[in-house]
């Protein structure tokens, strides 16, 4: 027994930040960002907390699923930028929506949402009936806003899914290749009077070229593997939902895989890279678009710091 998706929801902060807005204080341009990353604008929190975004996404997913918070058996949240290190964001959401179930966060960076889905699948195998999985981030607080190579890429947002015991989660693959040199975000520095080593600033560091290579290789290999594990062919997949890290990664991978661009979904031009939130936000857009047909196969693929990657196939 695995699960099927019965509800989705998402929420973005209200402030739109365009490329032109960024070029007022960074040495960059709309042309450069659009061409290299494929982003026109992103949403950035001004007063919203991650918990508020997650709450809105959770409520929308519950509403679509037609269930009450008290029916949930578990809340799992994928995040690296929660409001608190403790309590977990999942516990904050549990309180705000009025649920009464175990709740925990998972950190697999940008791959976190699929790691969380796979964790949920394990609980369904143990007999759980309904689980909420979220991806929610406020990466804008982890960015060095003077660093034009990273400040232009990321955005804030949250997405949620309500899962019910079922048989629509057909295959999955999780990977980790430990490496903190390519992509990392140090923890907050703190004020220990005893600690003697120099502490790095708590901002995103990325070797863009190595990240790009890892991402394209991981996305291509992982999608091929999960499609095969599901007993399907690439042509059977109606929709690919890739992590929205960089439009070029998505386009290159789709081309290598021979997947038509219109089946490989993107919203990065409007959202930027929202890390663990990107897949559930894009899923919510797809679920509300009216484009889905019963029985459609959806492949999801993500990659990020770790280095981690993850992919899965679900049936609508």
């Amino acid at each position, binding site marked *: 027994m695995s699960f099927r998706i019965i509800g989705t929801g998402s929420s973005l902060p209200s402030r739109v930040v365009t490329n032109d807005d960024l070029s007022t204080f960074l040495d960059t341009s709309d042309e450069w960002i659009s*061409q*290299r990353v494929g982003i026109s604008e992103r949403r950035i929190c001004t007063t919203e907390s991650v918990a508020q975004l997650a709450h809105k996404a959770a409520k929308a997913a519950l509403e679509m699923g037609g269930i009450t918070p008290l029916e949930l058996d578990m809340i799992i949240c994928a995040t690296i930028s929660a409001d608190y290190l403790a309590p977990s964001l999942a516990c904050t959401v549990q309180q705000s929506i009025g649920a009464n179930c175990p709740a925990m966060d998972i950190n697999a960076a940008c791959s976190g949402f699929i790691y969380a889905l796979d964790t949920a699948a394990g609980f369904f195998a143990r007999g759980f009936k309904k689980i909420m999985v979220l991806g929610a981030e406020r990466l804008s607080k982890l960015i060095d806003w003077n660093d034009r190579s990273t400040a232009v890429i990321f955005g804030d947002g949250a997405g949620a899914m309500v899962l019910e015991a079922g048989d629509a989660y057909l295959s999955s693959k999780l990977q980790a290749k430990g490496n903190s040199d390519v992509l990392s975000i140090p923890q907050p520095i703190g004020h220990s009077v005893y600690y003697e080593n120099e502490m790095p600033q708590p901002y995103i560091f990325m070797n863009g*070229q*190595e990240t790009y*290579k890892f991402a394209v290789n991981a996305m291509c290999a992982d999608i091929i593997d999960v499609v095969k594990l599901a007993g399907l062919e690439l042509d059977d997949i109606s929709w690919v939902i890739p992590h929205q890290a*960089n439009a*070029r990664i998505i386009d290159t991978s789709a081309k290598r895989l021979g997947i038509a661009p219109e089946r490989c979904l993107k919203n990065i031009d409007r959202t930027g890279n929202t890390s663990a939130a990107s897949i559930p936000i894009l899923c919510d857009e797809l679920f509300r678009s009216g484009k889905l047909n019963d029985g459609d196969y959806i492949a999801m693929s993500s990659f990020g710091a770790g280095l981690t990657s993850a992919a899965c196939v679900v049936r609508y």
Partner: protein
Amino acid sequence: MVFEKMAAIIAEHIGGDVADITMDTTFEELEVDSLDTVEMVMKLEEDLEIELELEESFETVGELVAFVESKLVTP
């Protein structure tokens, strides 16, 4: 050997003539950006069955070829 391979990959990537590519050709004049360079290096990795760790950016074809050659001699 690396130059010939690289020149062929670049020519294919930009849809140009391999004869126009020299060690002094800059990626800027080829209108190739840093991510295009990564894609071409990925192709070279497949062709030569090697793995290269990219840490720097390259302005000319010669700089990229020198980088790849330096990685090939050190085990």
